[in-house]
């Protein structure tokens, strides 16, 4: 129906009018599209560009930590949404190396992000996913991880141990 050509013997202005109206509707359609899409797309993409500030989170009192192996601590992630509940938690392996010195690693394996486990006796971190193993200094001992465990900053402030929050460490590719 709609593909009928207008009769050719119509006056010229009728044709021009049609062309004009076609253009107008295409342009207005585009504008409508943009007006609808821009707020939505911006809203959805915003989290990518909003870089949350790194925050210092308390993970315990200084006296809670004995010099020795690693312990698992939990703290709130840097930018929790209000409905996040328990999913706002982040975890780290932390070790009191000496009276004043701490070391902390993100629990994410540097291979594909699975949670590594500290096994005290052999003094190794092991990953349940594909057999990644790390030494206690975080360097790779075996398996597929291409990089050492991600180190988190730790500080002692007024008798409290604090960890600086970080994004989930991504192992970026170099495609070699």
């Amino acid at each position, binding site marked *: 129906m709609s593909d009928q050509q207008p009769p050719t013997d119509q006056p010229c202005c009728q044709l021009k009018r049609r062309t004009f109206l076609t253009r107008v509707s295409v342009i207005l359609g585009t504008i409508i599209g943009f007006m609808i899409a821009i707020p939505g797309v911006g809203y959805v*993409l915003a*989290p*990518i560009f*909003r*870089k*949350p500030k790194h925050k210092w989170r308390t993970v315990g009192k200084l006296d809670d930590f004995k010099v020795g192996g690693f312990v*698992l*601590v*939990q*703290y709130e*992630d*840097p*930018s*929790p*949404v*209000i*409905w*996040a*509940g*328990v*999913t*706002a*938690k*982040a*975890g780290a392996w932390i070790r009191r190396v000496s009276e004043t010195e701490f070391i902390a690693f993100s*629990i*994410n394996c540097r*291979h*594909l*992000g*699975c*949670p*590594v*486990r500290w*096994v005290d*006796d*052999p*003094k*190794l971190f*092991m*990953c*349940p*996913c*594909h*057999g990644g*193993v790390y*030494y*206690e200094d975080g360097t790779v*001992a*075996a*398996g*597929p991880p*291409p990089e050492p465990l991600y180190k988190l900053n730790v500080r002692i402030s007024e008798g409290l141990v604090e960890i600086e929050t970080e994004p*989930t460490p*991504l*192992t*970026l*590719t170099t*495609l*070699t």
Partner: protein
Amino acid sequence: MSNNFVTRTWNWIDNRIGFSDYIVPLMVHLVPDNARWWYIFGSATLCAFIVQVFTGVCLAMSYVPGGEETYQSLKYITDTAPLGSILRGMHYYGASAMVMMAVIHMVQVYMHATYKYPREMNWMSGVVLLFVVLGMAFTGQLLRWDANGVWSVTVAAEMAGRTPIIGPTLAHFILGGETVGGSTITRFFAMHVFIMPALIFAGIGLHMLLIMRHGISEMPDVNDPVDPETYKEAYEKRIHKTGVPFWPDAMWRDMIFSTLIVGVILGCSIFLGPPALDPPPNPSSINANPLPDWYFLWYFAVLSLLPPQLETWVILGVPTIGFIVLFFLPLISNKGHRAPSKRPWAGGTVIFGFVAFLVLTIYGYKKPWSPDFGVKELPASVVGTDHGPLAEGAKLMHIKGCLYCHDIGGYGGHRGPELTEIGKLLTRDDLIIRINNGGHNMPAFASSISDSELQLVVDFLLTRGVEKEPENPKSTTP
């Protein structure tokens, strides 16, 4: 009289909505009479989709996409809500059924080369649908917002992060921020519930439209390869001579098979129940053992078995190339023979794919590449004694985590070589060097094992596979 009233009412409605004009012709359109049981898988996929839509909508009435409330609502659905566990089970098994049927449908179409002229776009729309269905299956797995779900999304983000240049952006888009958390689950919910279903509805609409446009294909005829010049005309002619109306002449088979499928889905959900929920979704808890649902397990196995240099290529390449090859297949070969007997490569590909899937899936369940954290101590029957230095050495094998990766007499993991006969193969010095320095995929233990411990372990290992020394050694030497 009342009959007359019903007829008149129906005629009134029919006249307004055009059921007889539009729907009936679709239902009774002619289909080849030789299609029979081969063609039941497409409609079964559709039927599984209907199960998914219906159970999904019902579940959404109680499901709360957000934080730990998600977990609570899942627990409520599973444990408390009347029929909730059946509903959740149906949605779970329905997903499996849909993936399975879609793949079988595709294999059937591929084997009969139904994708050739003029049905190229039927196939292409089907490939897009398949990938969206897999996307549904994946996002659905994460909506089961337990420990496994949380860690799977982390792995997914890491994989996306491997994409050159836009990797981090993509990963943060998936996570809805820089870490897994509340905004991740709401994001996946929107994809699973609005975006992908909309795509599937649209895709199914197109797929069906194309089926109506080009007609259901006939069984391949060895003597009649597809020739785009003449195919359409010949098909029309044949179908008018030998075709049968889809409804009811062909459709009853679809109905029987779909009844069976829905019956199995319901049966599984009643008797097996929905998948158990892992511990709550706390990203700081390490007690998770991330494992994908069965249809992705083969891919998980591929990633674990690959040499690391190839990994990124495979992570990014398999989905991309898989899609491209499948999508463009009908453009590469859209004429010629359709009969499987004339296309041995097609058959070979399917068999190879199936065997590979099977083998990799079995590997995926066994996970021989992962340390086995749950191993027990070696029993005395394997050690040969329950006291003395030998038993101590055996105990250390457990304490030091050696058994996580090494199997001795059937006890232990499979990440590293089996040590059941190691005493025959290596000398004391070899063993000490290996344990201290590590080596190919083995950590060095020098700093975490004391000298005396090392001796005990080595002494123990040296007895493995070695016959007990005879009581009187002298008698054996002449």
